């Protein structure tokens, strides 16, 4: 099967700091991949390189047949980056809903402004997605009046309404109160079940174990393990993976 995301020989430097070291990963369509690792291991940076919120220093990203080389400039590059961003939806740790727009306006903003979609059509898709994340009843509220979990569910609906091929989640539950994590994870499970390709940076080992098809472990800007969750959690090959999993287990 043709990979939908192909990361090849990716390097990322922040000044002299080498945060991603020659990373190559393929992700198949409909696959749910969790990225785990200690903070500072480069997992968020890797995710943000896929839609070029961080510009990779070397190497290339390919999303759904569009290949973009890192470290370039100019009009062609910008157009390619734009095309890649249309194919990817992103959910942030801090939700980043637009506070001056209602929930519905937040969700239709992308399709109407970026894709030039007809407003009515956008509203139809938006309402469908809001319904599936259970937030349709708040569609005319401003984000200020929502709880963290509700905000994150709206953010997921906003990303889905752009009809992306791949969804990127950057620690989607890390900013939430413990009792609100469940509702967001449930929505993410639903999205996975609907066949979306997902790449999730997370600390939720339970979620990784239950939902992921593959779990990738990062440490010091390198991939140290990439396997099925049942193997990884029962029989980790790398001692660093084992330490990471043990740490979460004792934390639970």
């Amino acid at each position, binding site marked *: 099967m043709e990979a939908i995301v192909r990361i090849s020989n990716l390097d990322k430097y922040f000044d002299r700091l080498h945060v991603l070291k020659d990373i190559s990963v393929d992700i198949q369509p409909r696959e749910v991949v969790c990225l785990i690792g200690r903070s500072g291991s480069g997992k968020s940076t890797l995710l943000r390189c896929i839609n070029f919120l961080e510009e990779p220093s070397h190497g290339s990203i390919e999303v759904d047949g569009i290949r973009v080389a890192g470290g370039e400039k100019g009009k062609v590059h910008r157009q390619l980056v734009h095309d890649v961003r249309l194919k990817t939806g992103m959910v942030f740790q801090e939700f980043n809903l637009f506070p001056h727009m209602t929930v519905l306006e937040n969700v239709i903003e992308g399709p109407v402004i970026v894709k030039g979609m007809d407003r009515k059509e956008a509203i139809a898709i938006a309402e469908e997605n809001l319904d599936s994340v259970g937030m349709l009843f708040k569609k005319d509220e401003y984000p*200020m009046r929502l709880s963290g979990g509700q905000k994150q569910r709206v953010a997921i609906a906003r990303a889905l309404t752009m009809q992306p091929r791949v969804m990127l989640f950057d620690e989607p539950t890390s900013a939430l109160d413990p009792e609100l994590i469940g509702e967001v994870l449930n929505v993410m499970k639903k999205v996975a079940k609907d066949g979306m390709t997902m790449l999730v940076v997370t600390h939720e080992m339970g979620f990784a174990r239950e939902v992921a098809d593959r779990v990738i472990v990062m440490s010091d800007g390198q991939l140290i393990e990439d396997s099925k969750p049942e193997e990884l959690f029962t029989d980790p090959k790398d001692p660093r993976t084992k330490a990471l999993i043990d740490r979460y287990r004792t934390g639970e």
Partner: protein
Amino acid sequence: MNLFNKETGENKSQAELLYQVQQKKKFIFRRNVILSWAGLLLFLIFLFSGIELRSANRVTSISAWHFEIVTENDIKVRKRVERVLASLPVGLPNDGISLKTIAVDNEFIRNNSNFVAQGIVQTIKISALSIMLAIVLALLAALGRLSTNPVIYAVSTFYVSLIRGTPLYLQIFFFFLALPQLNIVLTGLWAGVLALGLNYGAYMSETFRAGLSSVGKGQREAASALGMTPGQTMRRIVLPQALRFAIPPMGNDFISMTKDSALVSATGFVHEIMWRATKVGRAEFRNMEALVMAAIFYWIMTLLLTSIQSRVETRLAKGDR
């Protein structure tokens, strides 16, 4: 105090009671402030009433001084005239006390208030044109301040530094009196608008810059992730939020600009409130009356603008954040 919640019939919580006490305190404070304001205003009116209290020669009297035009030897002269309102033959024990308030020439005010009031239109016109120019300049300067291009950054900071480093009065004269040497002749109005616009643009750029940097990085990232171009991100996401932040201080600037528009009268060719007041005041040596009149007009204008501003502010506060 009512210890039960009327709707639910339950005991009120401690927090609710505390809140009530605080609200009541606030209400009493506000009421007393308003009453004091009224008192101060009455005192000011009394100060300009022309009333005189006197106690001398065992007679205590209250009289009102005013101006009248009387004909003396076929020449009309303006004269201070006393009208005794009341006098009591039983004077206060210590003789020779007198309490005088300022007598204003009501006749003069009646005759000239229309003339001065006609300046309001001009004052509003100058302020409105200047504020529009200032907003455009301030926005450009603020964007320049946030630019990563060194030349654009320099142009913006240079402009702000130059304008803030020189007096507004000088700038008005520069546009009105200095530019004609270069064969650029501006009318008093346009010289004033240009100077005020440039001046307030420089000051307001700070407000705009603060507004723009109040919008978090996450907002830009979310917009980028949706595929918005930098232009779309600015127009749809950053500017609306920045403006919301900047509108209250912009209101303050607009109010002070309305008053600074008085400086434009110095050109002698813009017939706004200040110009009219000084003209009639000098002509009849009634500067106090003329300036008091102008002050009242400016004050009423700023009071109106302030109330509009606070209304806009409460409406903006409702939406978000």
